C-alpha cells in the first residue's frame, strides 16, 4: 500500500461542502465541493425548447452543459465548448436522465448548466452531485438523487476521490481514474468511465469503495436540501 500524496486513507474522501439555492434567477441551483474542487449547477425549466426540430411531443428532454470557467485552472482555460467539455456534458446527461421522467412536460427542455469554479480533479463527479441537487431544488419529479465520486488507482492501490496531485502520480503503474455515478440507495450505476488500466477482478473493490463514498455524499446532499427550508 503506497501512501497517498494527500495523506488520506484509501477510502477517505476530501471534505465535502454543499449548498442549495445559490442562484436566485434559476429555477433550481446548487453548489457542491470536494475539497478544492467547486462546482455550481443551475437548472432552468421545463421551458420551451429551441431549436424547434429538437422538440419531442412525447417527452421533455434534458440538456446539460458543463464547462470549466477560465480562472478555475492554473493555466487560463479558453472559455467555450471543447472536445473534453462536450464529452463531459454528454456523460453527465446520461448519468442524470435515468432518475428523471419528463413525459409530463412534452416539447420542453430542462437546461442544466454546470460550471467549475475551481478545479482540483473530480470536476465531473462534483458537477453531477451539484446538478442532482439543483434538479431536486427545481421541483423536477425524480426517482432519487444521484451521487457521484471517482476512484483512483495509484500504482496498484485504490484511492477514493483522488485530487489533482494524486492524478499526476507517476510511480509504478501510474494513475488510473474511474469516475462513477449511482442512484442513491440502490445498486444502479449511471456512469462509469475508465481512464487507464485496471485488472477486472479489482472492479468489485472499486464498486464497494464507491458505495461507501456515495452514502456519505447522499447525506451531505440531503442535509443541504433540507437546510434551505427554515
Amino acid at each position: 500500500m503506497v501512501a497517498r500524496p494527500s495523506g488520506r486513507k484509501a477510502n477517505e474522501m476530501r471534505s465535502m461542502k454543499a449548498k442549495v439555492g445559490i442562484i436566485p434567477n434559476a429555477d433550481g441551483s446548487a453548489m457542491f465541493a470536494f475539497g478544492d474542487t467547486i462546482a455550481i449547477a443551475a437548472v432552468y425549466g421545463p421551458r420551451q425548447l429551441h431549436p424547434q426540430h429538437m422538440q419531442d411531443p412525447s417527452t421533455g428532454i434534458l440538456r446539460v452543459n458543463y464547462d470549466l470557467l477560465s480562472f478555475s485552472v492554473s493555466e487560463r482555460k479558453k472559455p467555450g465548448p471543447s472536445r473534453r467539455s462536450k464529452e463531459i456534458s454528454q456523460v453527465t446527461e446520461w448519468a442524470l436522465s435515468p432518475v428523471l421522467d419528463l413525459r409530463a412536460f412534452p416539447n420542453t427542455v430542462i437546461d442544466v448548466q454546470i460550471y467549475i469554479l475551481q478545479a482540483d480533479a473530480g470536476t465531473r463527479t462534483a458537477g453531477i452531485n451539484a446538478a442532482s441537487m439543483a434538479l431536486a431544488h427545481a421541483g423536477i419529479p425524480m426517482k432519487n438523487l444521484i451521487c457521484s465520486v471517482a476512484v483512483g488507482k495509484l500504482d496498484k492501490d485504490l484511492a477514493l476521490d483522488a485530487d489533482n496531485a494524486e492524478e499526476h502520480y507517476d510511480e509504478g503503474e501510474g494513475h488510473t481514474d474511474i469516475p462513477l455515478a449511482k442512484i442513491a440507495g440502490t445498486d444502479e450505476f449511471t456512469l462509469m468511465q475508465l481512464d487507464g488500466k485496471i485488472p477486472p477482478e479489482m472492479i468489485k473493490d472499486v464498486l464497494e469503495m464507491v458505495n461507501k463514498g456515495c452514502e456519505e455524499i447522499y447525506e451531505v446532499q440531503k442535509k443541504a436540501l433540507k437546510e434551505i427550508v427554515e
Partner: protein
Amino acid sequence: MMIENEINEENEQIESSEGNKRWVVVPGEIIVSGEDFLPGEGARREGDNVIADRFGLAEVAGRMIKVIPLSGAYIPRRGNVVIGRVVDVTFNGWLVDTDSAGSAFLPIAESPRFLNRNEMDQYLGIGDVLSAKIWSIKGRGIDLTLKGRGLGKLEGGFIFRINASRVPRIIGREGSMITLIKEKTGCNITVGQNGWVWVKGDDLDSEIKARKAIEFVADKVLIEGLTDKMEVWFQEN
C-alpha cells in the same frame, strides 16, 4: 385506527392544507411505511413504502400522502388564473408571456366584448399586462380566456414575481391572507397562479408595503398560523 383515519379525512376537506403534520423530504426518501397509506401528488408506492417523487413538504392528511412543492418553475394547469404580458398581436389573437413552458395564446373570440380585428392593439397592445384564465392546455401550448370575473387588462400599479409554489400561501385559507393584506394596505392585488403579482394602490408607499408583506409571506414556508403573525407584522411596520 380506521375510524381515526376517516375523521382526519373529513378534516382535510375543511382544513385543506393547514393543521396537518408536514416535514421536508428529498426525492427518493421514504415518507411512511405501511399498507395503510395512499400516495398522492408527488409521491409513489414502492413495495411497503410511500416514497417522495420530488423535493418538497410531505403532508400526511388521513391516509393520503402528498408532497407540496417548495420551489421550481410554474407548471400550468387548466382553470388557473395567471398574469401575463402581451408579446405579440397576431391576426386572430394575442401571444402572451406567462412565464411558463410553452407559449400562451389568447384568441380574439375570448375577449369579453366583440372586437374588430383592426382595433385589437387598442384593446391590448404589446407590453400590456393582463390577468387571464387557462381554459385548455394542448400539446402546442396554452389557450387563455378573458371571460370571467376579475379577468382583463391590468392598468396602473406594478407587477413583480414570487415563486409560483408560494402562491397558495399568499392567498391563504379561503383567501384569508390576501384579504388581510388588501385591507391593511388598501391596495388592489391580483395574484396569478404563475407567481406574478399585480399591485395597485392609492400611493406608492402603500404599494411598496403590500409588496413587502407578500414577499415576507412568500419567505415563510413552515410557519403555522401565518395569518395571525401577519397581523402582528402590520402593527410593527
